[in-house]
């Protein structure tokens, strides 16, 4: 009899089986591969729904566990956590995942690596679901790494393109740096508390009586992992480059799920963070600064996917900010709604991209609203949701965060509001330039047409979700039944609403008349524009660090080693042996006379010695 507990494992392992089958057996059969992959994720969604209902009704769901590593003194168990948080996340991941899988049928049609793509997608689903279901830190770290690898494979999917391969490598390396802190944090927490299991830790952590320093160190190191995975400053640099991957990848991994894993993890270990107010503050400010920085860069970008990437960075900043303020429910709320509308936006962008034969520069587009009405409508809904316009979901989730800020941290609120304004601006800019007016480049945008159903249906589905997901605060109430919003009155809410609308208005002003490029904006901002366009030169700085600093260090080491080799090697053992050989060799001069002399002397010596 399959209990709910067994279903949990089915959800997790179905994508893995699909991935394995695709990679090993059905590489030459694209349709079968796609069917396997989609089947696994849809099954996952259905089962997640069942679990969701069970959790809603308060039934405990216990997945059978097994001892994975038994060292005598140490035991690691392979188990699953099914609670409200993970039930919600399961739905989001499988649901959005399923839509994107279907979308990929259309987007990747005709690609030589069609089957491989679905195999990698399934591998990713497995890894992501593993993060959601992880019951202890080690399990989470395992899937953390696996998600990183899936991302690496998918970003570099079109691997013959050097920029794609570089982007995949960059993503992995930057994530590894975050994992450096993460792993150390895990070791610290485990060694100090004696267990890695989340449930046990949550109960134990406050009672351990640790010093503030240790608490801060543990929380800070764990936060490093989130900084890497969720692309917060200063480890944000991989996300924009990750846009090299196919658009469904960007939608699924780099908008809805993988990058959200960092936020999810932080919510999962809330008890750890809450213990250290200094780190909470750090988290909040990191989120806020990332949000502002990313939004300001997005203002100057021309590639539609880059705009959305920076937008994702910015929204992730919001979520992290919320976590830092202790508002984890609000953060998860925004994570959920963001998954919907950001995936929607990315898929819409993808629809445009394939319609225009892989053109991504918005200033080559224009007038697409008429030619691609469904795409336009859904993109519009996505934009409004992202901007935080009532009554779409983004309004509710974003304002929940803003209201929490109003209570706890006014400077951050100002930061968030400025960011919201910028968000409205750059999204409207993208929308207007790409969809409205006339086509700027006839060759490119002239004969676009609407994408097929397999592409537009997911768009519509996500659009519906983007609209309704926020109503009645259903989601936060599910997470925390006692949730209530901080109430500051409707005037404040109207104020919040006004800000993105102002952003829209400014964008309409600047771009409404069919601007060909960013000349006006460039003039307005002056040197600031260049700074923003170059992403604050962070990438260049990192390149300097890696090439000059670490590379220089490596060169020094190599030089020292060379000297050591000379010293220990030539002067050392080999040298010693050779010197000894040289000494002895002198006797073998080749002079016959010497040989004779030595022979005679030797015999004489022996005779004398024997004769004694």
């Amino acid at each position: 009899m399959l209990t709910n507990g067994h279903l949990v494992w089915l959800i997790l392992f179905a994508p893995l089986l699909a991935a394995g089958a695709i990679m090993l057996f059905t590489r030459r059969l694209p349709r079968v591969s796609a069917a396997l992959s989609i089947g696994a994720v849809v099954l996952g969604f259905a089962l997640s729904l069942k679990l969701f209902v069970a959790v809603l009704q308060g039934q405990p769901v216990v997945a059978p566990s097994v001892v994975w590593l038994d060292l005598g003194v140490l035991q690691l168990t392979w188990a699953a956590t099914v609670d409200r948080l993970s039930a919600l996340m399961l739905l989001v991941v499988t649901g959005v995942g399923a839509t994107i899988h279907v979308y990929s049928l259309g987007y990747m049609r005709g690609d030589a690596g069609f089957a491989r793509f679905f195999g990698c997608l399934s591998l990713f689903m497995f890894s992501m679901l593993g993060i959601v279901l992880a019951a202890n830190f080690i399990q989470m770290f395992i899937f953390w790494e696996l998600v990183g690898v899936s991302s690496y494979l998918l970003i570099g999917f079109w691997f013959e393109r050097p920029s794609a391969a570089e982007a995949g490598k960059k993503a992995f390396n930057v994530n590894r740096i975050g994992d450096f802190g993460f792993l150390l944090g895990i070791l610290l927490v485990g060694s100090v508390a004696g267990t890695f299991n989340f449930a046990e830790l949550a109960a134990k952590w406050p009672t351990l009586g640790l010093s503030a320093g240790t608490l801060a160190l543990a929380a800070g190191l764990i936060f490093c992992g989130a900084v890497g995975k969720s692309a917060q400053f200063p480890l944000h640099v991989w996300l924009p480059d990750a846009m090299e991957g196919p658009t469904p990848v960007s939608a699924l991994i780099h908008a809805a799920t993988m990058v959200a894993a960092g936020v999810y993890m932080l919510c999962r270990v809330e008890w750890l963070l809450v213990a250290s107010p200094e780190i909470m503050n750090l988290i909040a400010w990191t989120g806020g600064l990332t949000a502002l920085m990313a939004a300001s860069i997005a203002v100057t970008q021309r590639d539609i996917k880059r705009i959305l990437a920076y937008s994702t960075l910015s929204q992730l900043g919001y979520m992290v900010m919320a976590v830092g303020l202790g508002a984890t429910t609000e953060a998860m709320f925004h994570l959920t709604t963001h998954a919907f509308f950001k995936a929607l936006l990315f898929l819409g962008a993808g629809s445009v991209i394939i319609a225009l034969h892989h053109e991504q520069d918005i200033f080559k587009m224009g007038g697409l609203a008429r030619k691609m009405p469904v795409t336009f409508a859904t993109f519009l809904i996505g934009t409004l949701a992202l901007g935080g316009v009532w009554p779409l979901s983004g309004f509710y989730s974003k304002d929940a965060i803003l209201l929490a800020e109003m209570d706890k941290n006014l400077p951050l609120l100002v930061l968030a509001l400025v960011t919201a304004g910028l968000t409205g601006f750059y999204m409207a800019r993208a929308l207007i330039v790409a969809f409205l007016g006339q086509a700027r480049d006839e060759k490119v945008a002239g004969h676009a047409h609407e994408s097929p159903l397999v592409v537009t249906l997911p768009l519509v589905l996500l659009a519906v979700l983007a609209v309704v997901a926020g109503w009645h605060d259903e989601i936060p109430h599910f997470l925390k039944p006692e949730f209530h919003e901080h109430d500051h009155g409707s005037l404040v809410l109207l104020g919040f609403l006004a800000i993105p609308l102002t952003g829209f208005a400014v964008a309409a002003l600047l771009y409404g008349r069919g601007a060909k490029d960013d000349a006006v904006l460039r003039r307005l901002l002056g040197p600031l524009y260049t700074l923003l366009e170059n992403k604050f030169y962070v990438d260049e700085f990192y390149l300097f660090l890696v090439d000059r600093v670490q590379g220089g260090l490596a060169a020094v080491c190599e030089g020292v080693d060379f000297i050591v080799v000379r010293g220990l090697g030539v002067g050392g053992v080999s040298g010693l042996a050779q010197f000894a050989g040289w000494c002895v060799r002198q006797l073998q001069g080749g002079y016959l006379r010497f040989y004779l002399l030595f022979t005679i002397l030797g015999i004489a010596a022996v005779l004398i010695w024997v004769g004694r």
Partner: protein
Amino acid sequence: MMHVGLIHYLAVSGALFALGLACIVLRRNALLVFMGLEMNLNAANLALVAFSRYGGHAEGQVLATFIIAIAAAEVAIGLAIIVALFRQRSSMVTDLLRSLKG
């Protein structure tokens, strides 16, 4: 007249041996090394015969005969090698034979 005893023969033999040794070690010319070698052999012969005569047995003389034969054989071979070397190197100086230098 001085009575000539064993010791005198041995002394002469010893002196001859030493001279032969000196010759071997100090001479650079291969032929002269051979002469020194012959001297050594003959010094040994002298000593053997002396012992034989003063010891009253014949073994010494027998051995001396052997040595003469062997010396002859050895000289033949040695001179053959030297001649071959001379033909190769056009010189008899042993110092030049250094191919087996270590």
